[in-house]
């Protein structure tokens, strides 16, 4: 099976439809946990998980605090909580201050995952309207994790991938189709 233990995806504006599309085309036996941190509008706090669950053959959960991460499940950062990945393979949540006006902050999820998984993870930054996630992806790269940034030319809002490209020289810059191919061919 794969050298990786998890795939961690961050995105904001425009990323929801994109993630839905990607997950609906992911092979059903995808064997890794997928951890997703997406900004959402304050008034759209529910429905994301339900929508994802309808499109995906994998089980979608908004994790409880200290929930154990299992292969083949999709973990979606709950609205209004930061989501951290821990050494012991669990998720912890917090209501700490917002970071770059964001809660959940993609930086926190990616940076904590980088410490927990080191080189055994894939970090992906998708379309989005602010700079959250860039620092986190740099931490992933520094720990030799595999990094992918969505090609800004294909992004609905290119601010987030551009910010990531400023800080990180990722292993790959891909279109959404390219990212999907990459995931489906992960061995």
């Amino acid at each position, binding site marked *: 099976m794969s050298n990786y233990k998890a795939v961690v995806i961050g995105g904001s504006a425009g990323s929801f439809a994109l993630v839905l599309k990607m997950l609906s085309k992911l092979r059903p036996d995808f064997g890794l946990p997928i951890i997703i941190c997406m900004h959402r509008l*304050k*008034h759209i*706090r*529910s429905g994301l998980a339900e929508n994802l669950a309808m499109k995906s053959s994998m089980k979608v959960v*908004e*994790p*409880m*605090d*200290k929930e154990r991460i299992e292969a083949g499940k999709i973990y979606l950062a*709950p609205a*209004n*909580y930061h989501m*951290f990945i*821990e*050494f012991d393979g669990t998720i*912890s*949540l*917090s*209501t*700490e*201050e917002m970071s770059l006006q964001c809660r959940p902050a993609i930086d926190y999820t990616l940076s*904590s995952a980088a410490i927990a998984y080191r080189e055994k993870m894939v970090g992906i930054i998708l379309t989005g309207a602010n700079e959250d996630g860039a620092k986190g992806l740099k931490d992933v790269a520094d720990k030799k994790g595999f990094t992918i940034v969505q090609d800004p030319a294909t992004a609905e809002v290119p601010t987030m991938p551009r910010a990531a490209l400023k800080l990180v020289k990722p292993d790959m810059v891909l279109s959404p189709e390219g990212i999907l191919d990459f995931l489906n061919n992960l061995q």
Partner: protein
Amino acid sequence: MDFKQFLKEFKNRTQYDFCDYCDSSISRRLQRIVEDTSMSFEQILDKVTVDEGFKNKIVDDITVNTTELFRDPQLWISLYKTHYQKLPKSGTITFWHIGCSVGLETYSNLIMMHQMGLLDRCRSIGTDINPRVLNIARNGEYAYRFNMFFRDNFDAVMKGCGFDAKFEDYFDIDEKADTMRAKPFLLERPKFMVQNLVTDKAPFPYRVDMVFIRNVMIYFNDKLQNQIISMIHSKMYDNAALVLGKQEALTSQMETRFSRMGQYYTKKPSM
């Protein structure tokens, strides 16, 4: 010196015991403090011993002080339809908000009580480890524009409960100063008191009908969670409600003493 040694020494030098806080989150908080102050653990310890203001700032930075008006509107609507309908029909109703921070949840609950015509029977207590946030809670004044989503939460809850209420019924808004302040009839209700959950018993002699402790125990390890829930349990009437954060659950050791009622728990009557 690692962060665990720091916490032990911090406990010896102050009255604050953070030793049973959850390792991962407290180590992140401490790392941020070290970065922000550009001081080592040793230097911080030396300074907290002699500088009261600095000590308070460190406590302020270690603890998480988030609260919102009507956080999770769906929860409040479901409380209205369930436990609020079962509150005592006469006499005093006692509410306890633990880790209440700047008091916005305390005021949210009192707004619900006012809508239900129960405000005059309410005894509302907010406790927190941090005296600074309690002063803000007592004053009941908050930034306005930054918190516009409070209005959305408020409207969602009022609509969901079928109440005909306006935000301005409860808050005086000063656009120029960019502040909103709880109206005097709300402000006079709650009592805010310091309580260190690790070391102190409840700082009042009453039993309670409803306890809110939302997104507080996510920062504690299991041992401390069990200790605190036991302390709370002993203060609750039979069938009183315990409300946790949306993504929180009781430890397996504690949950046998409660019944799960969807978004909250009730205390099982003693046999």
